[in-house]
Each structure stands twice: as structure tokens, then as C-alpha cells.
């Protein structure tokens, strides 16, 4: 009797789980738990920013200004922005030679 109850409960749990999974697939719920890095190569924890993203992030931080950063830190951020923009120029545009 006990064995039958255990097997019945297990079958019910499995059926509910499968049903819930199918419903999630249909409605798109619980997307927060999805591995979007695996699915879409998005939001990967160890991803490297594109060079445009790096510029965007630096500008965002610089715009926060003196309320967040010291003058020295702002100089560092501005210097990094200039260097990154210089790298973009070197990548995109020609300089010398063929």
C-alpha cells in the first residue's frame, strides 16, 4: 500500500512538473531564471564589453561628476575615455602606409 502511495505521489509530482514546464514554455514566464548567456550570448558574467559599450560606460560615469567622483578620479576616467576614443580611431581609420 505504502509503495503504491509513494509511486502515485511521484507520478503526480512528475506530471505537475512537466505540465508547469510546458506552461512556462508557452507563456514565457520565469524568464529571470533563464540562462540568457547560454541562449543568446547575452548578459554573460565574464563577457568583455565592446569598445562602444566601454565608451558609453565611461561617459555615463563621467556625467555623474563631482557628486560621485573626486577630481583625480574624474581625470582618470576622462583620460581612459580619450584613450578608448583614440583606439577607435586607430581601428576605424587609416594611418600611413598601405
Amino acid at each position, binding site marked *: 500500500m505504502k509503495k503504491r502511495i509513494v509511486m502515485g505521489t511521484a507520478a503526480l509530482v512528475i506530471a505537475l512538473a512537466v505540465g508547469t514546464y510546458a506552461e512556462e514554455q508557452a507563456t514565457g514566464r520565469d524568464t529571470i531564471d533563464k540562462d540568457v548567456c547560454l541562449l543568446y550570448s547575452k548578459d554573460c558574467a565574464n563577457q568583455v564589453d565592446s569598445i562602444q559599450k566601454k565608451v558609453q560606460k565611461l561617459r555615463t560615469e563621467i556625467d555623474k561628476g563631482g557628486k560621485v567622483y573626486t577630481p583625480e578620479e574624474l581625470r582618470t576616467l576622462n583620460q581612459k575615455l580619450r584613450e578608448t576614443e583614440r583606439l*577607435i580611431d*586607430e581601428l576605424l581609420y587609416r594611418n600611413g602606409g*598601405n
Partner: protein
Amino acid sequence: MKGPFVRITTTIAAAAALGATAVPALALENEFHGMFRVRGIVSNLDDYRSAFFDATDSSGIAKPLKNPGTRSFIEQRARLLYTAKANDDLKLLTHFEIDSRWGDSSYAVGRNQGGAIGADSVNLETKNVYLDFNIPSTPLNVKVGIQPFVDSLKGVFVNADAAGALATARFASGEAAAGYFRFNDTLPAGSTTPGKATRDFFVVDGKYSLSKDTRIGASYYGVLDDRSAGFKNQIHTIGVNAATTVGPATIDGFLAYQTGEVGSSEQDLQAFSANVGTKVKAGIGTARANFLYISGDGNPAGGTRNDFQTIGSPGTENNFFAAETLLLLPHKTSLNTYRGIIWDLNNRSQGVIGGFIGYDANLTDKLFASANAGFAATAKNNGNKPAGSSGSQYLGTEISGEVGYKLFSNLTASVQGGYVFLGDYFKGTAVDDPGKDPEDPYTARIVLSYLF
């Protein structure tokens, strides 16, 4: 046994913990960026080469031509930038390039090819390999190795990759730089001794911010060239530059004077270059204008040289991309095809007088367009002008434009088109039909550009 086992376990755990905490400090950050651009071109001038409009091409056909024919081809370029960053104060930068023209050759060894069926060519170029580091407890940044260098004269003297060392001290209100580059160290025939026939380049450059909106600068560039037997070229270039923002307008420019000695007869050098440019936010975009003057010499064999010397040989290592022209001066997005009516700004010792205007519009978040117009003339005509040329200095007027669409934030597709109305400088100079005018140059380009 319990005692030693616990001690060993504790030791391993401590070592692991120490290793874990040490990882961030020891970790090397590997950073990759790059660019890929492909251009489909239809033109009567562009031809996968880098040369003057009226240069003789590889098939021996001299320009300008009355019947140049239509060239249609596709070229591509990839650039890969790898940075090995130990920390914010120390990194190694390496920059590589791969160029091909679709269908050119395969299974070959050499740059700028490998686009034919089969591909598999040895065609990787190394543009830059240099160390970039800050000296602790000082404001000094040092770059050592084969690195990009552009002058403070918008590149009209030198804009090139070169081997050298450049130290820059950065302060709150400006920066000062000093550097040394070895452009060439040629071993003369029969010699195995480096350092005897060299072209060396010295840099002193400073910039100072007078206010948040105004910056001034001064520079000295020295070239000592003793590659030729019996004489030494000495070119001293002294320049000043400035930039300021007034309301919606940014105005910048430079003035440079050259002195020294050039050539086997030790000609005195006295030459100038100057520029003033502006960008003004207007409507949905930005209007821009630039004026350029590069001095020329009517008789380069005379006792004094008045043509502004630019860095070149074997190619051209200078440019003025602020013009934004496609054909009068080469465009900044050029790949292996790098043609221009004025290809090198010394312009065969004739110099340049040029005026350029344009407007860049952002029509939507993704759609953009630009329109350009420019004219150019020589500053002085000399014997290097094409055979049969009249006395006119007027080289021509260009109209050009671009319409583009950002498919993604880092992928852009665009169409460029340009046409040059050749000036009387070229009147009657067609080499394939003596006495006739050469055909006006045109180009149409479809460009796909990816940056990451």
C-alpha cells in the same frame, strides 16, 4: 595520524585561500577589439592602390586618362587589437591587419592578398606592438615600441605607425610629451652596421587648457635623415595649435613653420602650413568647414626650398582627414584603395590650397547622411605638373556624400558617392589622347563596417 592530517588539510586550505585572494592581483586581463570593413567599389580612379591621381600605375598606364575605363571590385580589411593588461598601469598593445581584394590571389605569401578561391594566404600584417605603462608616483606615461603617432597639425606632417619611445606627463591643466622615433635604419649595400644610415624623428609637444573651453598647444618635430651618402637632411618643424568652443561652435587650427637643410646641395628650407576649421551644431546635425594651406615651391632645384616637407617614402605617411573628401584627398575610411588627386600633402613640392565644407545629419537614431564639397589648388606650380598642363593651379572641385544605416550599434551599412570636376591644371593632359582633357574622376562605394 589525525594531527598531521589536520595540519596538512589546514595548510592546503590556507594555500587555496591565499591563492584565491591572490588571483585578482595576478590576473592578466585579455582584451580584444577589432574592426571589419568591406567595400564594393565602382570608379574610374579607385583601383586597390595607393597613389597620386596622375601616377603611373602598375601596368605602366599613366594617369590622367581620357578613357580610364571603369573599375569594379570588392576589397576588405580586418583589424584585430589585442591588449594584454597586467593592470591599469601596465599593458602590451598589439594591432594586426588583414587586407584582401576579392579574387586577387590564393595560396600566396605576402600582404594585401589572399582573396581568391582557396584563400589560405600568409597575409597577416603587424601594425603595432608596444608597451604602455605609467611610472609609479609620477604623472608620466610611457609608450615604447612600434606604435601609432599623429602630430598636433591634424596629421599633415606625419600620421603613421613607427618604432620609438614617447613619454607624456599629464597634469590637471594639460600635458607635455617628448619622444624619439627611428623611422628608418637602412643598411647600405655591403654594410652590416645598423645606425649608420638612419632617419630619426624627435618630438616635443605640449598642450595647455586655458579654461574648460579653450586649449592651446605648441610642438617641435625634428627629422635628421642621413640615409643618403654625402649629405644629411635636417627638417625642423615648429607649430602652434589651438581649439576653443564658443556656444554651439568649435574652432580649431594650427600654424607651422619649417626650417633646416634638404638635398645634396644643402638647400635652405623655409616653408609653412596652416589650417583653421570649425564645427557648428545646426539643426539635426553638424556643419563643418576647413581651410588648408601647404606651401609649395615653383623651383625645387633652386637655392631655397619653400615646399612644406611631409613624411613619406616609400609611401605617404601624412594626411588631412578633416577635409572629409573621397577623391580630392583620400578619405579616412579608405582601405588598401587610397587614391586622391592630392595623395601626399607635399603634392610633389607644389603644396596645397584647399577649402572644404560639409554637413553631417542624424536623420533618425539609425539613419545618417552627410554632404561635402571642396576645392583644391596647388600653392605653386612647378615642373612636376603633368605634361601639357596649362599654367592654372586649380586642381578641381569635389561634391560627395554618404547615406548610412546602423543595422546594429556596431554594424553600419552605407553608400558613398563622389565626383570631381577637374580643374584647368589638368586641361589637355590626357596621356592616352594628347591634347584632350582627362575624364573627371568619380567613385561609388557600398560599405559595410563592423566595430567591436
